[in-house]
């Protein structure tokens, strides 16, 4: 499943990236790499972007970006 399909608060593990865009590498450098635990903390009041927890800190990214990340529930 893709990151944005995850339920709120559900802990998951990053599997891989789907495709490649200009931001893929930036996301990896921010710590979104395979094997890392991730969860969606909340959505912004207007529904997008979302706030996730990764490597012990909080990061916000848009649905479009989250659609590039394949995850599996833990």
């Amino acid at each position, binding site marked *: 499943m893709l990151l944005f399909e995850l339920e709120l608060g559900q802990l998951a593990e990053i599997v891989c*990236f789907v495709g*490649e*865009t*200009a*931001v*893929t*590498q*930036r*996301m*990896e*450098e*921010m*710590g979104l*790499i*395979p094997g890392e635990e991730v969860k969606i903390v*909340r959505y*912004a*009041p*207007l*529904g*997008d*972007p979302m*706030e996730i927890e990764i*490597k*012990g*800190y*909080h*990061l*916000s*990214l*848009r649905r*479009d*970006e989250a659609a590039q990340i394949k995850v599996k529930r833990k």
Partner: protein
Amino acid sequence: MTTSTVEKETKKFIKTIAIAGNPNSGKTTLFNAFTKLKQKVGNYPGVTVEKKMGELVLAKDRVVNVIDLPGTYSLAVRSMDEQIAHDVLLGKEKSTQKPDVVVCVVDAGNLERNLYLVSQIQDMQIPIVVALNMMDEAKRQGKRIDVRKLSSLLGAPVVPMVAKRQEGMDEMKQVVANGVEASYQRQWKMSPDMEEEIENVVKLLVEQSGMSRPEAFGDAVRLLSQANLPREEDVKSGRYSSDFVKVLRNIQKRLTGKGVRCRSAAIEARYGWIKWVVHQTVVDKNIKKNVITQKIDAVLTHKFLGLGIFVALMGFMFYLIFFLAAYPMGWIEAGFEGLASLIAANMPPGDLQGLMTNGIIAGVGGVLVFLPQILILYFFISLLQDTGYMSRAAFMMDRLMSKVGLHGKSFIPLLSSFACAIPGVMASRTIENPKDRLVTILVAPLMSCSARLPVYTIMIAALIPEATAWEKARVMLGMYLLGILGACLMAWLFKKTLLKSQRPVFLLELPPYRRPSFRAVIMHMWERSRLFLRRAGTIILTLSIVLWVLMTYPKSDSLEPGEALRGSYAGQLGQFIEPAIKPLGYDWRIGIGLIGSFAAREVFVSTMNIVFNLSEEAETDTLREAFAKAHWPDGRPLFTPLVCISLMIFFVFALQCVSTLVIVARETGGWGWPFFQLSYMTVLAYVAAFIVYQGGRIFGFT
């Protein structure tokens, strides 16, 4: 060699230190603590990246230069900030000395991600000291860090600190004073295939481009991991030969064939090693993982409550900017008027008196009058930034801003522009993507700034003199909305055409909420305001003098000020442009007003006062009545309702503000963009006013 001579030599050696670090790591706090108020803020030549330099006094006769690098998460050279940080560290930036030591500020509560940059800097073989900042926060989160072990694993001194409270400052200075040596061996390793190919590329780069090994290594990792590198311009300029590019592509193909993911190989290997280091050195009891931040966020980014609080907060900020600032602004105005009349009373009348009162004092006053608004605005911006709320504001507003292709971070700069475009443009520095930032700068002056208020007020009074305050307020609101609409349309247009970027990127850290330091907020506020005074002040003053000259010379014999003005250069210029502005319904007198308003828009009102109050209609006591009586030579009334509307609409869209242009030139590193901005906004204003005036006439309005 004895130890003391070694020490002496290293001491002599350290002349420049650079401060690096992630955004939100407390980098600026450390820089401020290091340099006190001895700071120089400017731009790196030709780019929009801010350059901050200062001096650190280690001992009485030992002063070292401190460079505050832009806050970055990585040195992958994908953004302008990263490029500058990379170039400064390697000594490739011409305007700075190559740093002898790098102090890398690290957020102790977020060690893993922060060490990524440390590791990248270490690869450059520059002596590094790790400032392990925010130790108090890490402790509160239940983290215990074995500093000595961390230091030995990294092979670099680590100084635990709480920069905000100056804790660890003396130790840090001591370490810097004693000198740091680079004895670094790269610990993180990629797969053998990747390592081998990296080594091949490094050799090629050292041989062909004459790079140093550490630079070549960073370059090799970058070139192999990004398919679109090297950039075309770098190949064309001969930085990389086309043979080299061929070799590179072959290597990438080979590696991909072996199942190596070139893009992420280095990132994953680096993070793998960092994870191991953190595992060895941090005991995370995980008792309170930012519980407070989570609780605050549950309210502040709540679906309804969060938006409500945001709107209320922005409303409060604007209330203070518009209404509270009005008092000190009144005092400043009164003070300068008093000073002018004092001089007028004590100086013989003549050109010198005119220059002093109407040129210089009016000019200085015209700048200082904005200071209260700018101080308040920057107080809020600093406060929002230091507490961490700014990121939440961007988080909440991103959806809205993305509709016109902008970034959540564009919201605050655009909002600030309602007070004045200058702080708005300066606030756009928080936007990392240069294209998003440029679009924000380009549309910021379309937000109706407070200098337009007096113009709207007098035009509305002339338009609907009998109307109630509420009806007038509605027209005023309409002008504001028109400006917002224009900004949205233009932003959308620019993002579609001129400044098309691949995809809008929104990757934003939401740091834990932090108690702001009052001192830091005040210091930031003062630093920004000083920058405004210096940058805008000189220009506005010069322009006020120029305008005074234009409106005073050549002298005429006429005793009627209006007549004299007609003969002046400004009057001639107004008559010269009359044919161009006639289709909008304006005559040469309004033309003078438009020219005068370039110093500052509110000058329009005082120019109109000179033009009308003291000319043929001199008996009338208020400007509005003067407007009502003004007419064309053929007897038609000048300020018809349609002309009033047309004029207001012209003011909504036109960029009649030299100060803004100067700031934009500074921020974009040249005069190209401000010139473009002036052109597009003038065309927009002209066309809009033309359509309204001529269209209105077709439909039978006057």
